[in-house]
């Protein structure tokens, strides 16, 4: 009586088929990349050593390490964060705590989506026209970092806004009822409850900023510098641009060197992302409301 009819069997067969096909598509998407990463590690790992990380390149970059590039990337990221985190958090506070639901707020949201969608090379053109030429910062860490900051601003805004909105409305209402002003409520109640979420966004931004190449090419990063930058108005080398340089611009480059640089760069980026994901999962496990 409950035997599957022919139609039932056909439908169940289709379900099984769809599961296999879709699962296969997922695997086809993921497996090659894992294979590629494996190759990167296999070919790059022998090069990466303490010396590789902490000495300068020699012999026209075909030997030696990547220290100036690594340091440059760290400096670029720090300066970019100093600019974008306060601005991004302020923007997110406005959007989450103050902004009414009207056309103006929708325009802001559209601008944020667009800021994230504008091609990185266009950000580079903007950085060149605005910071290098108009504000006369020259090609410098400052100009490159500000370009990166504007480009990655949406990452901070979106992550912060989400974690602010995850704080229950009742927390705010309780605080307002005690006679606290809006800002007191935000500072004492909303921000402390959202700080880990904001942190995950900031770490994601670090990862994005460290990996970008095009926006810094004409605004502050250079192919090679014989000395380390002394301040924010100096030029610098950077890890991402260094990978481009050693894999395309230097003749007779030993094959392993670009693999090593790629491995360090991707290691840095994936480490940051993993930390951010781990923090988010920890937060989800801990959430009390």
């Amino acid at each position, binding site marked *: 009586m409950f035997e599957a009819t022919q139609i039932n069997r056909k439908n169940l067969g289709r*379900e099984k088929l769809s599961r296999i096909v879709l699962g296969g598509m997922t695997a086809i998407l993921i497996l090659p*990349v894992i294979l590629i990463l494996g190759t990167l590690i296999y070919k790059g790992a022998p090069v990466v050593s303490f010396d590789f990380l902490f000495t300068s390149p020699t012999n026209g970059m075909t030997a030696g390490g990547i220290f100036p590039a690594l340091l440059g990337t760290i400096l670029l990221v720090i300066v970019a964060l100093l600019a974008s985190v306060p601005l991004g958090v302020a923007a997110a506070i*406005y959007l989450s705590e103050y902004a009414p639901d009207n056309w103006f707020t929708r325009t*802001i949201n*559209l601008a944020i989506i667009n800021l994230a969608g504008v091609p990185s090379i266009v950000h580079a053109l903007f950085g*060149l026209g605005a910071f290098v030429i108009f504000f006369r910062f020259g090609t410098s860490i400052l100009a490159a970092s500000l370009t990166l900051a504007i480009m990655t601003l949406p990452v901070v805004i979106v992550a912060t806004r989400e974690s602010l909105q995850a704080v229950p409305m009742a927390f705010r209402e309780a605080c307002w009822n005690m006679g606290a002003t809006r800002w007191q409520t935000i500072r004492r109640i909303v921000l402390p409850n959202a700080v880990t979420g904001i942190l995950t966004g900031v770490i994601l931004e670090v990862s994005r900023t460290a990996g970008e190449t095009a926006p810094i090419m004409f605004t502050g990063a250079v192919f090679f510098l014989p000395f380390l930058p002394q301040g924010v108005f100096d030029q610098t080398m950077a890890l991402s641009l260094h990978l481009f340089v050693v894999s395309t611009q230097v003749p007779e480059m030993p094959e392993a060197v670009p693999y090593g640089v790629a491995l360090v760069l991707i290691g840095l980026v994936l480490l940051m992302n993993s930390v951010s994901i781990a923090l988010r999962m920890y937060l989800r496990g801990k959430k009390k409301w």
Partner: protein
Amino acid sequence: MNNKQSTAPEAVNDFDQLNRDWYIDKAVQILVFLGGISAIIFIIGIFVFISKEGLGFLLGDFSFKEFFFSPNWRPTSENKVTYGILALIAGTASVTGLAMLIAIPFSLGAAIFIAEFATGKTREFLKITVELLAAIPSVVWGFIGLAMMNPLIIDLFDVPVGLNVLNAGIILGLMAAPIMTSIAEDALKAVPDRYREAAEAMGATRWQVIYKVVLPAAKNGLLGAVLLGVGRGFGETMAVLMATGHAINIPTSVFDSVRALTATIAAELGETAVGSSHYQALFTIGISLFVITFIINLVADLVVRGVKKG
């Protein structure tokens, strides 16, 4: 609104304090508002500054027809300098097109699998993997195209050069797919569970639920994901610079080397003198890129918002 019933001896001080709090509150409100409108200011700023640098070219002897319909990009020619971006448009279009041919079906398939079939640990693992894949920097993808895909394509297809539309298309496809997957997955998750439950209660199989209920309901969100993926591929710079072969060419097969709009700016801007017509022409390409991605993002936003209203 503030507390007025304090009868303590320091009532006056209290009042000063309240006054101060009120001013701080107002000041903060103004500050965060400035933060809020910063995104608008930056978008306008980007447009103004790249237009300012490119304007000389547009106001000079700019020919719309030559710029968009001539395949000759010869900015440093000694005989006759021409700025035609048709070949570059063809390069960008062919690479993005091939990338989307790969990325759209696979990322939508993966999104459906992750959202509707995978459960528990598998689902969590797949989501995290996709997120990590989306984080791989574009210059690393370019390097992969150059160092791994290039010899692979030469071996497999017996062609002299492996840096071509096929290489860049695959690289760009792999690159855009994780982003499209996670946006599409969000769109599928936004379909309320009660839709699925209602269909299941009618005796529908999982696939019937997906095909007849979930996909139609998530249609706009999925379209938005595709559009954002197109925008990403279109604006990608480093990967296409390194994997296309960077030769000005209107491709006739996937084994032809091409050159993309974005890559042209990246490769040539460093060698031009600020304010020269070559420099201004590159900024004009930048303006075109900005306008096109702006339109793509705007349409994607309108499409996605359509789903929320309905």
